[in-house]
């Protein structure tokens, strides 16, 4: 394998930055959407950035030990690595060094980092939040993994750039969402849970466990979690676009696609209350899993 160091370095720096900027706009969009649905005006354009800068500019910062700080570094590092391995228009050198499976497991690294840091704070609200977050992960990953298996069967590869190339060759009919609509639907539902949005928002639950993982997070610790939220929105939407919507031909269509993908769960979240933990698991193991299994059989029959 030949290494083009210059190109790699550029990707390493540019991709996370882009992801962060797009993620900020996505956060803004989510908050504006919420405001509009509640008939409010919503925050000003720069609000997500101001929030993060404000948190970083706090004079005092509470730390609960080295693990608390290291975990935030792991969280940011994992997120940055994840962005680099995503295939986006013009940048896919690193995407060739891993595949969909790598990316899915890489997505768990920041979660694990966050989990360790939150637990290091010695606050049971945080621990309960993490226990619930992991439970939710167990719940939504079952349908999600089935859709990934289905996609791997359909395209005959797990390499993300390959999947994009296959879809783009065939035009609109080649899109995953057209080829396997049931799997696309199941993935959309598990995406809602992956982003931790109602009705699956069990681990933040402000009225119940005091925002769970964020209970003891203050200042730049909380700011880093806000950054993580931006990255998360971006990553999940890019992954969905890659698997089902043909990836991005260029940045214009790509951005439209990922914003539409994010807008769906962000709208739905405002019209639901929250399930109980066991109800989340039961529901996700029942409906999306059933849909995904049917979809998988349809794919395998072909």
């Amino acid at each position: 394998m030949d290494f083009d160091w210059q190109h790699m370095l550029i990707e390493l720096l540019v991709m996370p930055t882009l992801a962060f900027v797009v993620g900020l706009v996505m956060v803004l969009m989510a908050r504006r959407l919420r405001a509009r649905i509640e008939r409010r005006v919503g925050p000003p354009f720069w609000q997500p950035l101001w929030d993060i800068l404000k948190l970083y500019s706090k004079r005092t910062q509470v730390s609960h030990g080295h693990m608390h700080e290291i975990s935030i570094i792991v969280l940011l590092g994992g997120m940055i690595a994840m962005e680099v391995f995503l295939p986006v228009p013009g940048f896919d050198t690193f995407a060739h060094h891993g595949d969909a499976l790598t990316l899915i497991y890489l997505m768990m690294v920041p979660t694990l980092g966050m989990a360790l840091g939150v637990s290091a704070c010695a606050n049971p609200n945080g621990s309960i939040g993490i226990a619930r977050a992991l439970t939710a992960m167990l719940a939504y990953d079952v349908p999600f993994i089935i859709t990934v298996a289905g996609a791997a069967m359909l395209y005959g590869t797990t390499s993300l750039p390959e999947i994009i190339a296959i879809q783009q060759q065939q035009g609109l009919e080649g899109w995953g969402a057209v080829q396997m609509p049931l799997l696309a639907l199941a993935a959309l539902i598990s995406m809602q849970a992956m982003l931790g949005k109602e009705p699956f928002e069990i681990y933040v639950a402000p009225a119940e466990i005091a925002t769970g993982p964020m209970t003891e997070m203050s200042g730049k610790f909380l700011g880093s979690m806000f950054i993580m939220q931006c990255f998360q929105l971006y990553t999940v939407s890019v992954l969905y676009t890659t698997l089902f919507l043909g990836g991005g031909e260029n940045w214009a269509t790509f951005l439209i696609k990922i914003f539409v993908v994010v807008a769906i769960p962000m709208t739905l979240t405002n019209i639901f209350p929250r399930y109980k933990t066991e109800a989340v698991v039961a529901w996700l193991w029942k409906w999306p899993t059933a849909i995904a299994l049917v979809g998988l059989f349809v794919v395998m029959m072909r």
Partner: protein
Amino acid sequence: MIPSLDLLLALAFGNLGLMLLAGRNPTAGLLSMILYALQGWVLVMLMPALAEGAASGLAFQVFGWSLSWELNGLGWFFAIITVGAAFFSAWFAAGAWGVQGTRSPWAFHVTLAANVAAMLLLLASRDLLTLFIGWELVTWAGYAMMIQSGGPATRAAYKYLIYGVAGGLAVLAAVVLIQVQAGGLGFAAVAAWMPGISTGMLWALMLLLGVGFGIKMAFLPFHRWQAEAYGESPGPAAAFLGAISSRMGLFGLLILLVHFIGLARLDELLLPLIGLDARILWMWLSALTIIIPTFIALKQNDARMLLAWHGIGQGGYMLLGVLVGSELGVAGGLLHVFNYATYQAVLFLVMGAVVYRTGTAHLDRLGGLITRMPLSYVAMLFAIIGLAGLPPMNGFVSKWMVYKALLDEGLPLLFVAAVIGTLGTILSVFKLIHNVFLGQLRVEHEQIREVPFSMWGPMIALSLIVFITGYMPGLALDLVMVAQTSLGFAALDYHLGGFVTDTGNLNMLAVVSVLLLGMGIGAGIFLLGGNKSKRVHQLDNYAGGHFLTTEVRYHYSHHFYAGLLRLIGPWYITLIKRLEGGIAALTDTLAAGSDGLYRTAYTPILMLAATVLGLALVL
């Protein structure tokens, strides 16, 4: 000294003798460490000779049977792991633990040496008779190792022994069957006879071997003995047993089922009604072996039990990978043997250290130890990431290979099953590290200190191996390829960082480097981006305005994953209890039936008939 199999066995048995004599001596641990290191060196030196097989000069004639030994690539691969695990366990026991942490260091050192010697003998078997002798020795050596803590351990070990003897009998029956049919026990004779055997014979062999070796692997449905037997063993003993002991069953299956019978033959065995073939059946059993024990582990309240249950579950990945039969799958399964041994040993050693300091491994009675035992924490962190199979540790690589092989072969449902096992593992290992090392430190643990170097040394060394073989899986794959080619599979195409396949690549060098670079950037943003942080007391914590005191337990450890367990808790009772109850009832009925037969019918006649039948078969 020319490295040869003789030298290896001489070292192993010499070590056993030495430990029998001097096991009580405080330097015994160091001595055995040196001897294990020497064995490891001999093994490494033997590597080039493996292609032709490293034969032993030792040969016996017993009742006309000739016994001889020879180490092939597969045995060598398992031997390396065995000796490595023994080395690190002995290191752990060499210092303070051997002096104060155990009731009898002598018992530990002797049983460890005996286990290693027995395993090497098994791994170097050249014919089915030596295989069987080695098998029995391993069973009994394992028993000796398990009983050393006494108390509940004795009961668990006894259970193991019953299973083990039953498995041994099944293996013996298979050996006798082969001898009668093939007319010889040498591997060459067996290999020559195998291709022509009938389907009925194949079924019989598969079932007998499956039961015999599957019991040692704790393969479903023979999994019930293992967790207790391993969990109750003292720290380093559990580390050794957990890391490698069960893999002897896998070795047996590999050599007989995969190597001699061959996966292709398994495809021919169709189940009567369902239309599935035997290989798929084995694979689904492996998948269930992954899932069910993993979710039982999730419920455990004792850290060692939790780990032991995971040991059972991880065994499923190995067999699943090998059964896929593609180069990637076989390599993945075998690599998982190595990877699993490294992190499972660390986990048991860390728990041994925690028990040594706190006196308990109960997950509700620990917490916050990270401030007191930071090195143990780091070792455990590396190991649980490995066990959970997340990057950047080695467990991820072998699991990725198994997943990929399953997808490539068009088995998506098995892939999903394997991933569900991984998800369950993530949940349960997080509970482990959270309840032991994170959260609130208890008052009674305030004075605890880190364990001495003799104990953290092996943990840290092994956890570095976990990381490095995750970063550069090519290093471990070099070893795996020796075993893989000797099993008769083509070698896998790999490079230092991973694989390039037509359907997706993995380059751990890139993944881990980017992860580390990302963490560097993250550290830059986080550390330079804001004001310096100030560390606060653990009781300076949000409690809704409540003033925390040490009298209040402010740690969530009991009934972790309450929400999940409210849903799946009842399933354990219905599904698992019934499954196990069914097996127990079946065994009971069989036992009672045969017992009744012996008692009521004419006992002497039956005995005579059995003896005559047995003799007729053998002669």
